[in-house]
């Protein structure tokens, strides 16, 4: 079928494992592998309580007989053996000021294992390398500045001797950046910004856009009102690498502040997709997906790299579930959009302009200062918040989706360093009908092959293994479906909601394991834990409003005071 599962090498960053199960074909003959026939026999082996109440996103890393968990902020990196006993623990110094900037529940991701070291980023702005065998800290660098409103959320990407780290801070008016560090020493090799003059953004002779709107000098300055580019936005989402092309690819976040009337112009290079030279950081191409973002969508969603024939020609594809609701398939050599189809109910964008690739916005759902626009779909949180997966057996892209909509009233907001300059009254809304779904997308037909509807939005990543689609829900169900049909095969009730990503691996004993973090939180789950007063519908980024609606209310108070790692095993 000519289909390469890049997803496993790149996007399932935390989960790269010696002997990872890439479908049943790589499993040994004797002990059974995780698959359609065996999943029913999967049983809980042990659990490990992290003692941290914040949302547990991402996935643990596994190597040999060790499993590594990075707990949420204030972080601890814990090494466990495959019986669940603690081997060592590293507790980095933490700066508690980071909590004030921790929008979306402040969830983080990682660690990433490469060459015997664990690489991680901390919410308060450090990148670190730790020896996996001993827990010795090899290096620790402060790369993001809380004073500038920057935090770190995504797991680093480790590739070719470099550690790529992207900032977070769109809501704090920080200029987003991507930095490459030397994996041996942590020394910073380069840093490229998402707004500002070409020199700082890394736009030079290598830059070639598929769309004419991207040509011109210093667009990162000229597409903003004077000096407004300094307020930035455009923080990178999850980063992927294509070693063959020598590029790193990621989406950039929304511009700051939310109020579009404060920043007339197309606000380059926020809310679009970047491909950069992996060695130098020089931009190769940029494709805007939400220029002059009016809905705080950004484009920083988790993507997939897929190699497969497209209309009869082998192509290197980038599968991008844009926050505006459209699944975009791009040629990742050029940035050209090949396909764009809605994966959730949408009304803010009606389609894409073929010439410019720009979204065609519906007038009724445009937003302006001090004007309340109702029922915009999707909500600012976008349809896909966590990693999709490519099912090797079926070729389907498995997308965990949220169908939340929103009411949005942008308001004037000054950018005050150290504060969040959101400047919006926003309320998330649960639409009529299911609020989420696992969508198996057929790239060939540009349509869903099947859809497994969920009463709550999905906020955790998907694992595709052995013909299965495995994912968790906000109300704490870990589910395994048949990736061909969406038929439910297995379900387990976890002690807390799941926003983490399951990982599968084979232990040194040859047995098949499955591990997942439980601990509800994040942009769609943080209100479950209390501390948020839902009488104010705008609390927690408007999530309070959704939580007051029937479908969501059931998860209120279901947050556990500690997250946990659940480890399952086949007998």
């Amino acid at each position, binding site marked *: 079928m000519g289909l390469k599962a890049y997803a496993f090498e790149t996007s399932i960053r935390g989960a790269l494992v010696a002997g990872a199960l890439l479908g049943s074909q790589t499993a040994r003959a004797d002990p059974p592998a995780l698959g359609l026939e065996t999943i029913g026999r999967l049983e809980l082996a042990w659990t490990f309580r992290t003692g941290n109440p914040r949302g547990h996103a991402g996935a643990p890393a596994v190597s040999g007989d060790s499993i590594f968990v990075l707990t949420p902020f204030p972080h601890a990196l814990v090494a466990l053996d495959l019986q669940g006993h603690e081997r060592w623990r590293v507790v980095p110094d933490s700066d508690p000021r980071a909590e004030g900037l921790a929008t979306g529940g402040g969830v983080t991701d990682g660690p990433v294992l490469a060459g015997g070291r664990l690489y991680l980023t901390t919410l308060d702005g450090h990148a670190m390398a730790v020896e996996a065998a001993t827990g010795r800290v090899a290096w620790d660098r402060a790369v993001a500045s809380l004073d500038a409103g920057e935090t770190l959320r995504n797991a680093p990407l480790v590739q070719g001797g470099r550690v790529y780290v992207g900032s977070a801070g769109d809501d704090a008016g920080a200029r987003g950046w991507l930095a490459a560090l030397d994996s041996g020493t942590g020394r910073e090799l380069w840093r490229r910004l998402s707004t500002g003059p070409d020199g700082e953004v890394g736009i030079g002779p290598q830059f070639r856009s598929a769309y004419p709107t991207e040509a011109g000098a210093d667009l990162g300055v000229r597409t903003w009102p004077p000096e407004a580019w300094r307020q930035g936005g455009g923080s990178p989402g999850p980063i992927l690498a294509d070693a063959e092309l020598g590029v790193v690819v990621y989406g950039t976040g929304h511009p700051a502040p939310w109020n579009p009337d404060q920043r007339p112009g197309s606000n380059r290079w926020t809310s679009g997709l970047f491909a950069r030279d992996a060695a130098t950081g020089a931009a190769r191409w940029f494709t805007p997906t939400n220029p002059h973002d009016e809905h705080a969508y950004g484009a920083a969603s988790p993507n997939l790299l897929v190699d497969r024939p497209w209309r009869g020609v082998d192509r290197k594809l980038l599968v991008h579930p844009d926050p505006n609701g459209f699944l975009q398939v791009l040629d990742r050599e050029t940035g050209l959009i090949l396909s764009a189809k809605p994966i959730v109910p949408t009304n803010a964008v009606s389609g894409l302009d073929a010439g410019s690739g720009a979204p065609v916005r519906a007038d009724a759902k445009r937003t302006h200062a001090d004007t309340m626009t109702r029922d915009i779909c999707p909500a600012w949180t976008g349809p896909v918040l966590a990693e999709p997966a490519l099912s090797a057996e079926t070729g389907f892209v498995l997308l965990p989706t949220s169908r939340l909509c929103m009411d949005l009233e942008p308001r004037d907001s000054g950018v005050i360093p150290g504060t969040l300059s959101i400047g919006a009254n926003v309320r998330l809304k649960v639409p009529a009908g299911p609020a989420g779904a696992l969508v198996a997308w057929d790239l060939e037909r540009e349509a869903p092959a099947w859809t497994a509807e969920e009463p709550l939005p999905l906020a955790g990543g998907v694992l595709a293994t052995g013909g299965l689609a495995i994912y968790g829900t906000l109300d704490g169900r870990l589910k395994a479906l048949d990736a061909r049909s969406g038929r439910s095969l297995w379900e387990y009730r976890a002690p807390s909601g799941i926003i983490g990503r399951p990982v599968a691996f084979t232990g040194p004993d040859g047995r098949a394991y499955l591990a997942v973090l439980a601990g509800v939180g994040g942009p769609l789950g943080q209100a479950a834990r209390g501390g948020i007063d839902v009488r*104010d519908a705008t609390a*927690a980024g408007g999530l309070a409003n959704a939580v007051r609606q029937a479908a969501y209310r059931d998860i209120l108070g279901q947050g556990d005071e500690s997250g946990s790692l659940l480890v399952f095993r086949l007998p």
Partner: protein
Amino acid sequence: MRALAPAVLAALAFAGCQRETRDFRTDPPVLAALDDVAPLPNRIGGAPPDVYVALGQPYQANAYALSEGKRLYDGMNCKGCHADGGGGTGPALLDGWWRYGPDIVSLYVTLRDGRPRGMPSYADKLNSEQLWQVAAYVQTIGSYRAATAATSRNDQMQSRPSENRGPARAPLTEPPSR
């Protein structure tokens, strides 16, 4: 005759406004003295400055001061972190639970000096009078105490729609979409 009527009305209206005095510019020595709080060693609770007491607690019971506090709450991006009191990255301010105390001195110290887990200091952005105004406003957000003065309320801050907008006895948990 007809020309007189508006003037009379205006005079009556002004007479009606004579409820509160407001100073447009507070004397610098008073401003300095207003900063003289004596919090307890744990930075929670304590005594307000003498001048605050001498002025007769001029902020908590003054609608103008509260409205100024509300305006500053918006303008200083408190909203970005606390929303309209329901909380976000910062804790909820209307649920009656306090990490550092609901009394005016605790609130003043919270705003002036910040708090370690992410509450920024506003000492270099607001003067003492403005800090008192915001502190007084914060006390009104939850409206769990009787007060003789109040700001206008944001619609979305009410736990239910005002009586003239919603059906009678609307269940608290399922408000009509607003």
